[in-house]
């Protein structure tokens, strides 16, 4: 299921970002990274784009771009990359 699918009002979790190129990087920079909760707020009056809430702010994106964001209705059990936090390198 992609972010273009869930009904308005639902909350889903990002599992992965598909596609390639600069759009992918932009999507992730906006906070849509695996494990993030996304609430579907509304669709624009003409049906597109979509408004979602992610990381405490509201983001709008077209269905066409939302198709790249794979989501699940449950928090994914994806083995998280284990970061070491901040430290001197």
């Amino acid at each position, binding site marked *: 299921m992609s972010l273009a699918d869930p009904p308005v009002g639902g909350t889903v979790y990002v599992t*992965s*970002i598909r596609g*390639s*190129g*600069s*759009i*992918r*990087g*932009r*999507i*992730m*920079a*906006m*906070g849509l*990274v*695996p*494990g*993030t909760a996304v609430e579907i707020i*509304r669709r*624009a*009056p*003409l*049906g*597109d*784009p979509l*408004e979602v809430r992610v*990381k*405490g*702010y*509201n*983001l*709008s*994106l*077209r269905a066409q*771009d939302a198709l790249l964001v794979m989501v699940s209705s449950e928090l994914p059990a994806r083995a*998280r*990359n*284990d*970061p*070491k*936090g*901040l*430290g*001197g*390198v």
Partner: protein
Amino acid sequence: MSEVTDEGAKKAIRVALCGNPNVGKSSLFNALTGSRQHVGNWPGVTVERKSGYRNYRGHRIEIVDLPGTYSLIASAKDEEVATRYIIEEDPDVVLQVVDSSNLERNLYLTMQLMEFGKPMVLAMNMSDITEERGDSLDLDALKRFLGTPAVRTVASQGIGLEDLLDAVVGAATKPPADRRVGYGELEATISDLREMIDKDGEISSRFSSRWMATRLIENDSYVRRLLSDRSIWQDIEPYLSRMDREESEMDLADSRYSVIDEVVVLSCRRCKPKRSVSDNMDRVLVHKYLGIPIFLILLWGAFELTFSAATPFMDLIDSGFAELGTWVADNVQPDWLASLMADGIIGGVGSVLIFLPNIIIMFLILGILEDSGYLARVAFLMDRLMNRIGLQGKSAIPLLMGFGCNIPAIMATRSIDDRKDRLITIMATPFMSCSARLPVFILFAGAFFSHMAGTIIFMMYMIGIVVAIVTAKLLRTFVFKGEPSAFIMELPPYRLPTIRSVGVHTWDRAYMYVRKAGTIILLGVVAIWALASLPFGVEYGGEDSWIAIIGKVFEPLVEPLGFDWRIAVALLFGFIAKEIVVGGLMTLYGAGESEDALTDALKADGSLNQVNAFGLMTFSLLYMPCVAAAGVIWGETRSWKWTLFSVAYGIAIAYVIALLIWQIGGPLFG
């Protein structure tokens, strides 16, 4: 880090100002530098470069305002401009403006900035909003965790500026804290890449190899260009193509956000943004059925206000300059000098300033709509429609404003961050029929289509819209092809605009218009004056003037459109402003100052009928709106190529359509 200038003991500190869009970065920049600003362009790109300075405790602090970005992967122009400045011009301090009420997303840029290994300072802006809603930000915890000075600011009210400047001076004189995001399993890949990069001593001595390694994983075009002509690229490229780059890219973003999660947990109490007021407003303003009608009503109101409020000022400017012109004509000798001053220079300055009330009022309204957050909603509402014609939501405002006046409309495209979308919008806007074209339509529709003048005028507006759409489609299909620009936009919470910020914004536009566009407009007007007045002694625009001679030279060219030399001359005058087409025709048809006399003269003349009158209206609609519009297109694109394209394309379209009208319509209805 800092250097001593020749002016004695003053130390110069260069600061790069970064931050997400909508975090108050411009307010902070203005508050820090005041009027000591310089506006230019980044080399090679049409992105504005603002810099300014502030003298503080014996230091000259030079601040460069980098474009607002969410990340620093050089895939878009703005990101590349910001990256290149930090890398190539090596500022002493990187100052990031952070929206304290939206820590998570803002800190993503912080994580990327830290990878450059430069001294950093965070301005925790909008801290008043954060505190008002009962969140508490533990600055000490934040500073300890990030190893970076952080200062509370409210840029719009000038709060926290001294502390911030102290922190900047402090950061410039100390080595940076060596804190980076740890990337877990990816660290092995990063160290492999660093090892390969370090083999090239010239590159690794200039740039941080850790920064380059992470950017390579993220497919950063700038870093790829830096390395692709080095011999080490032969090892790096196969390594990159062997790895699962896309998965790794996701892991990098994931790690950054995991660190941010920790920062937020440690430094922020109750930092879960509540947006109840904003959300309630959106329930109405972007409502499924009410959203678009409300927008149209607001737009109509903005137009009404702009034109009704601007009209008295425009009349004042108009009559003031007319009076000045008359006085000069009566009191200056010889006549040619009086004419140069009255018709050329005074008329020219007048035709620049006449648009100023429009621009100021339009941008006051637009500034309020933009700062309040409503313009982002307009883009949200209109994106579907605009996307259909190869544009995006943010193009809606300039296009609709174009019906009033193309000049502020073209200037309003600045809110479109994607360069291609912005250029296409600039190229399409001149076809939106502005109010100056109306007198031409009224004259010809009244004279030749008296029974259906309204319908004919409506058709003109429709032809303009169709040509604008076709232009956008053509440019999107043939010139700016490739990956379509994504529409990924923040909908910021509604805020009360401040007088200061709206004022600065409006002043900026008005200044740019007078200073940059004004020069070109004046040049154009004086050139037309010279052509209409030379050789010495001819009647202004009369049959023996150079402009008439040029009109006659052009006659064979416009003959297939059903126009004679007088029409060609009137159209040449129309380059100054469309309403002058009417005035030019009055002179040429000897109709004095009366429009009724001109209507009779046009009907009696016999060289015009319904078909070529319709063609003439269409031609007036489509060719370059006025020299002021061309000046603004140059001012906004900084490209002679695009300015000339816009002018030439408009003339070509006008010619072809008028040709078709006369060649097909002439035999049918003529």
